């Protein structure tokens, strides 16, 4: 635990600094390797279904992992994180349909809109505690959802943004080409995960864990808890919004369901499925949920029933997410051998 040694003098600090640096270099290499593998996938398997699956994983994975920054790392159980997913999809879709700017400009502008919205909503929400935080985020989510439904002239109401999203080529990338869309989604996913991992491993990330474990103590040692919570709320919103952008590109539109509370519910479920104590837990959860959804929907019309029973298995049987379970099981086995 290099973080704990930080108070043991300048030397320890320097060691920690060097370790952090090599760790970052290692993360960059891993991220690059993952991206290369994902990008080579279409050459090995030419199935469109697989590519679609990975794109959906990228959209939901970014969303779920960013939610875990709030739930798992900071202890902020947001029931309304999906609003930023929806905001990303609608912001990007509208920008492309109405203004005719290039894709990168629309993307950055969407993030800017998300930033401002998350700052305002977050400033109101993060001073509330536990269940009240959960509910007020839910209320904001539904407020945005209601606005989308009622502002028909702009959003198309319950029909959603239809007519497709124009995707003019930029920098030699043509997003209407399925392969280009796939590689871009993979790149966004890998960059997003890398950045989120850096946030989680930074001193700021450890501040968040401390706030989760004991907010009073954190404020006693001079941490501005409100500001730290707001910062991570806004950061997480940006990544969720990026997931929404990928989704809008994938379905070439945006629908009110993207901003409905069920998206947040699925995000929470994904986190619980994969586990909240490991960084990659939500990613594992995303893959599991998507596979589960796809197979169950194909097999039976009562897919809620099957899904519900699977959830019960995780909640009452394992009592933790899959990755949490695996990590704990592995640790126990290793300890058992050491003795």
């Amino acid at each position, binding site marked *: 635990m290099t973080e704990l040694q930080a108070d043991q003098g300048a030397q320890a600090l320097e060691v920690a600094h060097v370790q952090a640096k090599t760790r970052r270099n290692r993360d960059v290499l891993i991220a690059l390797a993952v991206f290369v593998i994902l990008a080579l996938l279409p050459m090995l398997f030419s199935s469109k279904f697989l590519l679609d699956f990975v794109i959906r994983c990228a959209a939901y994975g970014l969303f779920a992992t960013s939610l875990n920054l709030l739930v798992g790392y900071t202890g902020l159980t947001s029931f309304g994180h999906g609003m930023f997913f929806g905001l990303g999809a609608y912001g990007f879709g509208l920008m492309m349909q109405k203004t005719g700017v290039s894709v990168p400009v629309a993307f950055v502008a969407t993030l800017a809109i998300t930033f401002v919205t998350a700052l305002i909503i977050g400033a109101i929400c993060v001073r509330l505690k536990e269940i009240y935080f959960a*509910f007020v985020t839910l*209320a904001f989510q539904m407020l945005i959802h209601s606005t989308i439904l009622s502002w028909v002239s702009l959003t198309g109401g319950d029909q959603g943004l239809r007519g497709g999203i124009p995707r003019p080529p930029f920098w030699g990338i043509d997003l209407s080409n399925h392969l280009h869309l796939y590689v871009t989604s993979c790149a966004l996913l890998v960059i997003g995960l890398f950045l989120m991992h850096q946030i989680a491993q930074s001193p700021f990330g450890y501040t968040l864990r401390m706030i989760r474990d004991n907010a009073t103590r954190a404020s006693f040692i001079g941490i501005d808890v409100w500001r730290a919570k707001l910062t991570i709320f806004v950061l997480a919103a940006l990544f969720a919004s990026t997931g929404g952008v990928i989704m809008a590109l994938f379905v070439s539109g945006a629908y009110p369901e993207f901003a409905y509370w069920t998206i947040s519910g699925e995000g929470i479920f994904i986190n619980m499925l994969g586990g909240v104590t490991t960084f990659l837990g939500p990613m594992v959860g995303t893959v599991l949920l998507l596979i589960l959804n796809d197979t169950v929907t194909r097999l039976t019309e009562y897919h809620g029933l099957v899904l519900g029973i699977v959830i019960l298995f995780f909640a009452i049987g394992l009592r933790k997410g899959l990755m949490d379970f695996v990590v704990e099981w592995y640790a126990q086995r290793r300890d058992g051998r050491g003795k």
Partner: protein
Amino acid sequence: MDIDALTGCLASSACLVTQTTSGFIIGMLLFLVAVGLTLIFGVLKVVNFSHGAFYMFGAYFAMTAYQLTGSFALAMLCGAAGTAILGLIFERGFMSRVYGADVLMQVLVCYAFVLIFDDVVRMIWGPEFKSMGMPVAFQVAPLFIAGGVVPPYYLLLISVALAAAAVLGLGLARTRIGKVIRAAAHNPGMVSALGINTGLIYGGVFALGGMLAGLAGALAAPVRSLTPGMGFSVLIESFIVTVIGGMGSILGALIGALLIGMIRSFGSLGFPLFTEGLMYLFMVIVLVSRPTGLFGKEVA
């Protein structure tokens, strides 16, 4: 937005009466669901996300009983008793296993049951809209109060809900069981050390909450259409009610339910597309100004 319709209604006594009654019945149904929710939270410290399903089952039980027997009273009884039993089974069989676990685990168990219950209803009663129809006894001419139309059934609905509120409020405040329940909410360890079976109390409170939601569903069955998933909008609205009123406060649930009922009723005139939005906006305003709700106590 249609502000003219709203001001026009406020100026007409007939419209005012009609809208207020309709706000009242929305509020009263919401109160019955929300008070169960708030009670379960107050005693068990569990946020029961599957509470809307009990409302749904209450409505379906009542419809089936009414179709089989033709008796309205029996239909109400079946709706309430059936969901009470369901609540007991649900609590003893599943919820009791995740007490003390992460809040997210409890939410997840409830979420699982929302999915399961909806599909069970779909299996038994089919996916299409059903309707119970107005009982024969209430197929009479509506009353006219100051020019406004008030169906007699609405009066029954409001009085049953108010009676339930009174019985519940007095029962918790005055009776021995009520005191034990409040004690268990405050300090379950001490209550159990005194030789009182807390498991029984927890199961009982859950059954009571389920029964109230089931009663609301049964009362709503003649005036609303029944569909799998009908519990959901009710659940979200009763959450708003409990949060506005303050989690765990019965009086808060009553006031919150009436406020939401009126917002829905009058909001549908002035802001037809944004009625739901108005509720959420109201909830945000309340929570921002009073983070624990109107009647909520600061919970440690």
